[in-house]
């Protein structure tokens, strides 16, 4: 921008060749959007040059997802295989060597590592995650029982943080000078600075200990649909989920607000918004039909990934509120070095992220004409 009028743009084009193409196409989708106008040019040139059709793009993403899952499975396998002695954990202290050998053979620990890994992956695909060292029950059953609690908690908090986060972010970007924006921004920094466990504790003190309005621990008011227990259909159920969800929500909300604002400011600075204004389009059209729509694409990406972190933060929330979900199970497994549960949880989180990423990519491909066409 410094040398206005120069033939710069023109002669920059050939120089783009110097960048390895892998540098860009390998970047996560959302990174593509964070460049300015020049970043656009890259994407245009490169996507155009490769001629990537949408289904190819998605197929590629799918394969990448499978690869990621294989790596995650390998990490889980490595933890399982190399940490602690599985045999020691399976048999009691008083077991004889013969007993040990039997268990070893049963577990297939005498086979080559690669075979063991393949078997491990095969077992996972069949839903067999082994037996928990601590509870001596099947890990998959344990997880299935706890899954609804975590999913419901994540959904409720994710829903509310999106519901409030996006409008707040938009407001902050469009009214950068208003006092409300300044309060939102400082407030969001405070929100990021309060650790989840602390806000949980403070909520408990306020609503359970002092006011006595809400229960502080556990999950209640359940209605069962087959193996799925839901707490969202009764008032009592909501009284249990409210505080954990709010705790989770605070952090997500602030993050989403800030990211939406940043993305939108980025778009507002672009030339095509300037040109739309110069065409005399009304503020409404410029801000909502152009700026908002274009910033929503990266926002969807970010929110998708953000929802993933809800799962991670639910570990903390579940511990504070004694919420019987997967996170609590994971913390317990770490405390007791319960390796099958640890690796199962790892695979669950990995799969969750991969699926989330795929959904995000799908939305992205549907919205962006550069992927849709070609």
């Amino acid at each position, binding site marked *: 921008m410094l040398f206005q009028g120069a033939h710069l743009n023109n002669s920059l084009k050939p120089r783009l060749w110097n960048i*390895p193409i892998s540098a860009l196409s*390998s970047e*996560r989708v959302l990174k593509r959007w964070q460049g300015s106008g020049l970043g656009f040019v890259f994407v245009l040139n490169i996507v155009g040059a490769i001629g990537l059709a949408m289904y190819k793009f998605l197929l590629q993403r799918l394969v990448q997802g499978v690869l990621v899952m294989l790596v995650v499975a390998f990490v889980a396998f490595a*933890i399982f295989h190399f940490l602690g002695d599985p045999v020691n954990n399976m048999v009691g202290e008083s077991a004889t060597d013969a007993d040990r050998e039997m268990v070893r053979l049963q577990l297939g620990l005498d086979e080559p590592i690669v075979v063991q890994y393949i078997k491990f992956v095969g077992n996972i695909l069949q839903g067999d995650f082994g037996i928990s060292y601590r509870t001596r029950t099947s890990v998959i059953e344990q997880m299935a029982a706890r899954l609804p609690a975590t999913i419901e908690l994540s959904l409720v908090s994710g829903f509310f943080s999106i519901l409030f986060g996006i409008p707040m972010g938009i407001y902050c970007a469009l009214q950068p000078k208003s006092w409300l924006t300044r309060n939102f921004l400082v407030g969001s920094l405070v929100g990021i600075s309060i650790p989840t466990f602390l806000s949980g504790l403070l909520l408990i003190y306020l609503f359970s*200990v002092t006011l006595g309005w809400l229960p502080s621990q556990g999950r209640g008011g359940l209605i069962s649909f087959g193996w799925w227990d839901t707490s969202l259909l009764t008032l009592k159920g909501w009284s249990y989920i409210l505080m954990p969800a709010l705790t989770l929500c605070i952090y997500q909300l602030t993050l989403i607000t800030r990211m939406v604002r940043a993305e939108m400011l980025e778009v507002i600075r672009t030339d095509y918004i300037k040109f739309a204004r110069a065409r005399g389009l009304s503020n409404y059209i410029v801000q909502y039909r152009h700026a908002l729509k274009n910033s929503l694409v990266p926002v969807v990406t970010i929110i998708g990934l953000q929802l993933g972190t809800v799962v*991670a933060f639910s570990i903390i929330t579940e511990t504070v509120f004694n919420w019987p979900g997967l996170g609590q199970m994971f913390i317990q497994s770490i405390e007791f070095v319960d390796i099958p549960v640890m690796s199962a949880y790892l695979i669950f989180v*990995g799969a969750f992220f991969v699926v989330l990423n795929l959904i995000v990519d799908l939305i992205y491909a549907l919205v962006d004409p550069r992927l849709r066409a070609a």
Partner: protein
Amino acid sequence: MEHNNSHSQGVQQVPQMQKMTLIRKIADSDIFYSFCRSPLIVFAAVLCLSLVLSALFAPWLAPYDPFDQSSLSLWAANLAPLSTDDDGFFYLMGTDNQGRDILSAIMYGMRTSLIVGLAAVAFALVLGTSLGLVAAFFGGWVDSLLMRIADIQLSFPAILVALLIDGVAKAVLGSSQMESLAIYVLILAIGLSEWVQFARAVRAAALVEQRKEYVQAARIMGVPVPLIMLRHILPNVISPILVIATISIAVAIITEATLSFLGVGIPQTEPSLGTLIRVGGNYLMSGEWWITLFPGLTLVLLVLSFNLLGDWLRDALNPRLK
């Protein structure tokens, strides 16, 4: 943008600019100007500095020594703030379940939090920056491999990665050894969970720099690759590193506190802000709020001051916002 260009030229032509001492140069810089213009940021800096100093000089400033077992008495346990015990000792913020003065414990606790936070970030910074530079400069499969690893790790939130590393360490070391090595394991775990941010930012910035002609000039001259990275590229990617480092300190402190709270970080015998809150959480139900609230408040203020500074730094160093 045209006016910007000529304007800055106009400014440079002021002759006094050349004869400025370092201090005056700093005082005259845009960063310092934007710093002074925002009372909130000045407040954050003062807050941050005073918290760090009170942690640093805790042995001299703290009213009691929380490690001194002899001074602890269960008679003075769980005293409310502003109370005096039977021996006439005054406790501004009350005492915890073992009769420790909360204020002193906070000051010592902050030391642990800050040490872990700073060391973890330093570790992540060195690791991430070097890997980011390597990925940007060599490209090809090195770049792909590093960025794939980063992508995969990024799909797992930092806290989860830190938890996993901690869990793995526990399995490897056994719980007795874990006790004595806890702080190092924690630094390692948090550092390893944060390096990706640095690596990605440095790589992105280095790719931009690398396209610039001064790097091409150095390559044409035949400057060795390590020298190009250290002397040419690194100094030009300092600002994103600085911003991320500031914000990472905040994240690292939170992560440490969270891990300690979950009982997998600093052992309970040593005060850190997280363990103090963990202890307090058990007494919250019976209405002893001060054991949780004061360490919690300190933690929030400490993290907030770093976040405020990082947020301001990001805007102040962003050339596009000028």
